[in-house]
């Protein structure tokens, strides 16, 4: 599908963006548009398939649903086309398709629970998510601005994380706050903020953190970090354990810790960090598994998913989830005719993947996994091609968030690892999660836009001028590696970027320069 779509879209691109193509890297906004149209059509097809399977007729809201999703996707596309024209063309279509499929699956499950409809709310949240996406893409001219707010980010993240402790526990976990009838999971937003903070902190301090300590054993290439810089990782570890114990949210604490370890490794390249991380993680896991009954029972369920059946108490959620996947087989029962609702509580949120597995089969499930894989891959790709360490770390961190989240919850509901509550990105019911994931995609779009943007000299003629275009060719692009400069596309557009002066000083080390000029360096206090 993807390959064909890209191929078909390329033709459109060349036709639509002929002037831009002369600049260098193709912008491929036409590809993006074609893929978005395809994603919307696929989602509408799924929506219709549910209705046809259930009532033998097209569902009444099909047109409205398609129009709503289409308008959201088109607005997002317009924002990207106008404000981030060089961004990776796959990120937005994947997000649209996953969000659309999520809405289809939730709508499908709503049919089983006429009393509580979740799809309309989810559509509202998706709209909020897309709105945030558009705001981020439009207002955030350059992702490096965020570096300046790294402390604001970490304070906000900690505040968001501790907020739910003040609210009553829901289903054994203190991760929700209720405001005006809406349940919000602040921890979701904290993920992005922490990723921003980690990226900024590590970009500033990676040299210090790279100092090698003693080797673990002779001739080993693995070296432990020095004791002085162990502080931060221990702090984050304690923070994760704190989250786990205070909020009983194993998934989130796992995610934070994994995120930090990966970003630390990416920043320093020290395998020792991974060893320390694994050691601390397993220490924490063993201790918590022993002490916390909540966590302990999850592990028991994972090891013996059918113990409750043998005890005569019927199938528990995990067993029902496994039944669901098994019932799907290779090709699934078809949308609308499975029985994943038997899972009961959380069928639309944590266990949404079971519906996909049962009704779309291994084929559909693998397709979803591959879509996530592609999204993550595009995220890392943006990280690889970013020119500044902050951008690289940010993109890698955001991609890791998506990857870990998918692995933790998908592995949990399929019995690969102990189950921890976590939202399947874009797919699962849950407003905070959808909004957060749109923010993640928006940031990735920003990073990839700045990474793929050709950097002409500030004085370069606008490439929209056909006569000047050949001059701003590959040579010009390669010569000036500065991240900023007038873009070829919208030369008259007012930029919301910070002043270019500090960024333009040292093309090789723009980030460190920026950080050092800041009032406080996160690295020195963190």
């Amino acid at each position: 599908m993807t390959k064909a779509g890209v191929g078909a879209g390329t033709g459109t691109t060349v036709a639509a963006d002929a002037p831009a193509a002369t600049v260098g890297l193709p912008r491929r906004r036409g590809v993006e548009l074609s893929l978005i149209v395809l994603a919307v059509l696929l989602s509408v097809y799924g929506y219709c398939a549910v209705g046809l399977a259930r009532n033998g007729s097209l569902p009444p809201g099909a047109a409205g649903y398609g129009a709503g999703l289409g308008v959201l996707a088109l607005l997002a596309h317009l924002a990207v086309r106008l404000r981030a024209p060089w961004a990776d063309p796959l990120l937005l279509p994947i997000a649209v398709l996953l969000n659309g499929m999520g809405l289809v699956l939730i709508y499908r499950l709503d049919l089983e629970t006429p009393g509580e409809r979740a799809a309309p709310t989810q559509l509202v949240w998706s709209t909020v998510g897309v709105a945030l996406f558009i705001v981020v893409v439009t207002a955030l001219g350059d992702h490096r601005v965020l570096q300046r707010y790294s402390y604001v980010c970490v304070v906000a993240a900690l505040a968001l994380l501790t907020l739910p402790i003040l609210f009553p526990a829901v289903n054994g976990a203190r991760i929700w706050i209720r405001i005006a009838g809406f349940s919000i999971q602040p921890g979701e937003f904290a993920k992005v903020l922490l990723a921003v903070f980690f990226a900024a902190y590590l970009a500033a301090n990676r040299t210090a953190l790279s100092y090698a300590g003693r080797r673990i054993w002779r001739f080993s290439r693995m070296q432990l970090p020095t004791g002085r810089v162990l502080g931060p990782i221990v702090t984050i570890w304690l923070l994760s354990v704190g989250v786990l114990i205070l909020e009983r949210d194993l998934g989130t604490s796992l995610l934070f810790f994994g995120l930090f370890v990966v970003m630390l490794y990416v920043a320093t390249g020290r395998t020792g960090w991974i060893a320390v991380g694994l050691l601390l993680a397993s220490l924490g896991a063993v201790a918590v598994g022993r002490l916390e009954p909540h966590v302990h029972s999850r592990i028991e369920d994972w090891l013996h998913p059918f113990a409750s059946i043998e005890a005569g108490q019927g199938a528990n959620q995990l067993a029902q989830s496994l039944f669901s996947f098994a019932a799907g087989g290779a090709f699934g029962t078809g949308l609308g005719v499975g029985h994943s609702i038997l899972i009961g509580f959380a069928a639309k949120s944590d266990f949404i993947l079971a519906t996909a597995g049962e009704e779309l089969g291994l084929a559909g499930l693998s397709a979803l996994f591959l879509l996530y894989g592609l999204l993550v891959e595009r995220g890392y790709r943006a990280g690889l091609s970013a020119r500044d360490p902050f951008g690289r770390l940010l993109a890698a961190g955001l991609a890791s968030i998506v990857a870990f989240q998918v692995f933790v919850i998908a592995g949990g509901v399929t019995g690969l690892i102990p189950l921890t509550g976590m939202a399947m990105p874009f797919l699962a019911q849950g407003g905070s999660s959808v909004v957060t994931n749109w923010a993640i995609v928006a940031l990735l779009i920003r990073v990839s836009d700045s990474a793929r943007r050709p950097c002409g000299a500030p004085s370069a003629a606008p490439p929209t001028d056909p006569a000047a275009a050949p001059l701003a060719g590959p040579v010009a692009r390669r010569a000036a590696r500065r991240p900023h400069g007038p873009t070829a596309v919208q030369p008259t557009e007012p930029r919301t970027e910070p002043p270019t002066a500090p960024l333009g000083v040292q093309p090789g080390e723009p980030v460190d320069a920026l950080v050092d000029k800041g009032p406080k360096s996160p690295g020195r206090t963190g």
Partner: protein
Amino acid sequence: MTRHIRHAAVFCALLLAALLVNAARVQLVQSGSYDANPANRRGSIARYAQPRGDILVGGTPVTGSRDTGEQLRYERTYQDGPLYAPVTGFASQVYGTTFLEHAGDALLSGSDPLLSPFPLWNDVTHGRAPGGDVVTTLNRHAQWAAYEGLDGRKGAVAAVEPSTGRVLALVSSPSYDPGMLSGNDARAERAWARLNRDPDKPMLNRAVRQTYPPGSTFKVVTAAAALDAGVVTDLDAATDSPAPYRLPGTTTRLTNEGDGCEDASLREAFEWSCNTVFAKLGVDTGLSGMTRTARAFGFNDESVRIPFGVAPSTFDTSLDRAQLALSSIGQYNTRATPLQMAMVSAAVADGGQVRTPYLVERTTRKGGATVATAGSRPSRQAMLPSTARRLRELMADVVREGTGTNAAIPGAIVGGKTGTAQHGLGNAGIPYAWFVSWAQGQRDPVPRVAVAVVVEDGSARRGDITGGGMAAPIARAVMEAVLDS
């Protein structure tokens, strides 16, 4: 940093691979065992997701399905449930299935591979064909006549077509409404508990699952054995039999209800049901002769299925002569289901042929296309055709001028035999009233119906309990219903 981002990406790719491999494990490798887990409700949901096929009597369904809109969507309904309960059984979402609902379950529920358009089609599509229909051999009018004749008294009626073995009526009384057990709610639970508690055992299918001492009706078998063995050659010649008869090797004296049985001819003895004559005839025929004939009629056959199983009727094969004497008049360990006694009567009517009884004429797809038919059934010769002819004569005499005059139908040839079977410790129980018979209409080339009726009535005075008084009128009603239709 580039290298390390690549490492992180490779790590994520490994995670993705683990997810894919694990998904394949759950969805392909272990899918079968998960599907078969008893706690997995998908099997039940699929089973009740479509209307169940119907059971037809005389071309019209006596069953139906009701859409409950619940998770287990369709529930079984029955028209005249108590009337047909011994045939249909019940199809409950909780308590399983019985009788035809059980024997034809695969077809009725649509899972029968014969229903799928192509071989293995349903396996590939995970689909289920619409439930097929089961067309029974029952005669609606005969069934009604038997049910109304029993009128709630404990008892059973079985009627078969002698020339084919088709079961025309199968009634057990008291009965119950199987529709009460269909659902999975508290109502079904209460009904189940109440029916199981009921001392009258309404769910017991007395026509095929209960054996009774056949009493004097077994004298048909004894007479056939004696005639086949040549112990009696002339129906009207006096037999050398004392009355009362002292059971061989004992001091027990066997008596008759009436007088005139001493040295009576076989015709007289049959007409007036002389215990002494038949006890001695059985002893004279010998254990092997009696056993052979009883077996040929279907006694001691544990494999009868119509298509649901029939309790085996028994004739003890290791007896001393006193026990043989009692067994020959349908006492001691001799026991028979009503259906078995109908087969005995049918064999007499059909020239000695015992046809395997069957209840399902054919099975069809939802649209009516035939899936399978009853086909030709094996039959065996229970007695010589000449013996059968003479027994018909004897049985016709019983109805014309003997104990069974209540079964006479004007304008038809009817043969019958009454029975009053004692049972219980020291024969203290209230005797069972039996009547077995067959009937041939004026224009019929062969007898069209053979019936066995048993009434185990606790309310009547003991003196009134005779097969001729209580059971024969029911048999006549059933035979008339068949002859008229």
